[in-house]
């Protein structure tokens, strides 16, 4: 097989493209620009850490099935950890989002990074909502019967029935987390490829 032939392989092309865009020193950097020194940067990694804890506690809940936590004190505690990790996740994510907004973090070809972050945020809201309607308690009865009117008014309720607990549970534990994780990975990779947005230059602060 000739070198040219190898170079034309899809695998070779993909490897070269990935290695060019994201060399190891970018993927796992050991230095960062000196301007990356603010508490606001903590909330990005906190969001990621909380996502990991949310997934881990959700997996623990899944082991014994959806009714377990109603009848077991251990199950109820695991449910509490799932709830509070979600609260931490959203708290950190919202601060991260506002921080990035006020840094205008889309500058320098980072619009896709911003957009994947926003879609991840919206996907996370849907994921949390399906969790609330999958609790199989009074809260889920009330939230689902109220939310149906909003979703039905868009026409989406005909396909995404919030009163169908089985459908909501499947979306909560499979489809939406999968989407959220894929989007998060994409978002993080884009951050690594493009780097953290630099500060505004002094001369451009009041430019129109």
């Amino acid at each position, binding site marked *: 097989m000739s070198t040219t032939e190898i170079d034309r392989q899809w695998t070779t092309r993909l490897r070269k493209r990935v290695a060019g865009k994201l060399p190891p020193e970018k993927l796992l950097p050991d230095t960062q620009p000196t301007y990356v020194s603010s508490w606001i940067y*903590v909330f990005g990694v906190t969001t990621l850490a909380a996502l990991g804890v949310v997934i881990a506690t959700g997996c623990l809940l899944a082991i014994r099935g959806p009714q377990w936590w109603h009848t077991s004190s251990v199950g109820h505690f695991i449910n509490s950890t799932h709830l509070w990790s979600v609260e931490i996740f959203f708290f950190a994510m919202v601060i991260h989002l506002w921080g990035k907004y006020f840094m205008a973090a889309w500058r320098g070809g980072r619009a896709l990074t911003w957009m994947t972050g926003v879609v991840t945020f919206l996907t996370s809201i849907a994921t949390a909502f399906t969790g609330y309607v999958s609790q199989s308690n009074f809260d889920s009865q009330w939230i689902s*019967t109220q939310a149906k009117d909003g979703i039905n008014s868009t026409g989406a309720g005909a396909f995404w029935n919030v009163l169908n607990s089985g459908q909501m549970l499947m979306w909560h534990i499979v489809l939406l987390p999968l989407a959220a994780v894929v989007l998060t990975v994409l978002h993080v990779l884009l951050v690594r490829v493009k780097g953290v947005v630099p500060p505004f*230059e002094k001369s451009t602060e009041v430019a129109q």
Partner: protein
Amino acid sequence: MTKAFRPDVDAPEWKGGYSPYDIVKEGIIAVVIVSILTVLLSVAFGSPDDPSITIKAWSTNAPMDFATTALSELNATSGTAGYGAPYNNASTGQQLGPLTLAKWVGDRIPVNTVNDFIIDPLKSLPKQPALTADLSQWSSASGSARAGWVKNYSQAANKMQIVSGQLVVNATNAGPLPVMMADLFQMARTGALDQALVTQNGFYTSDYTLPLLFLADGTYLSNIAQKQHLTGDQWGMMNETGNYPGQAWLWLYTFWYQVTPMNSSGNGDILVWGIMMVLSAGLLLTPFIPGLRSIPRKTRVYRLIWREHYRSLP
């Protein structure tokens, strides 16, 4: 010709220094701290788990509310009976200007309140001669005969009573309805109606559309929710049972339900959804929207974020 630098779109190339950064250590420390914080919050506050409401509890604790709701399912005056898509074609449903989105999609989750909430559950009861005869009379009757019975029963039901745990409606010319509705009431109080509503499509099920719609048509569920600060005018969508933070991230969505005309319009839901769709699109497309993308530079909040960097500049 060089392209002009756009401060809200372009970023300056960093020519300054770099400092050590251990990304793996940072990640692991974050996971440990978040895990500890999660456990501490869980130990301190736990999580709410108010038991679900059953139709048995509803018909026992609020029998008149259950009976009048069942009547509204029978005479098609309930919320579900007049809902429109996706449950039926009884109304146009909510509209966003000329857009009738729900109606366009149609009744893809068909619900017939008479059959699904009354007749079919009654058919699941073990054979009882009087009820069997009445169900047979109902199924073989013409549409106009049924309408006449429903009308007469509904008029008499204004004076319905619960006597010794029995539903009593002294209706004349109401055909089989007095027996059927009394049996449905008994069925509800035994818990059999709960089961019948979820097993209409077979033994295994995870679809609670019918019992939830039935429950939501009454006031028992909403009265409990009101006490828990969960109704729409109490910022209910973002609240949770007990004193828990709930879905605080839905504050903006919930906010619109407190504002005129959304809080009073029959199209309130689709108006709120329309607003949220536009706002979400705005957030998504912020990098491309002049004005919106300039706010960070003009407000100079970033000076707080990068204060060390600016302090180090000459």
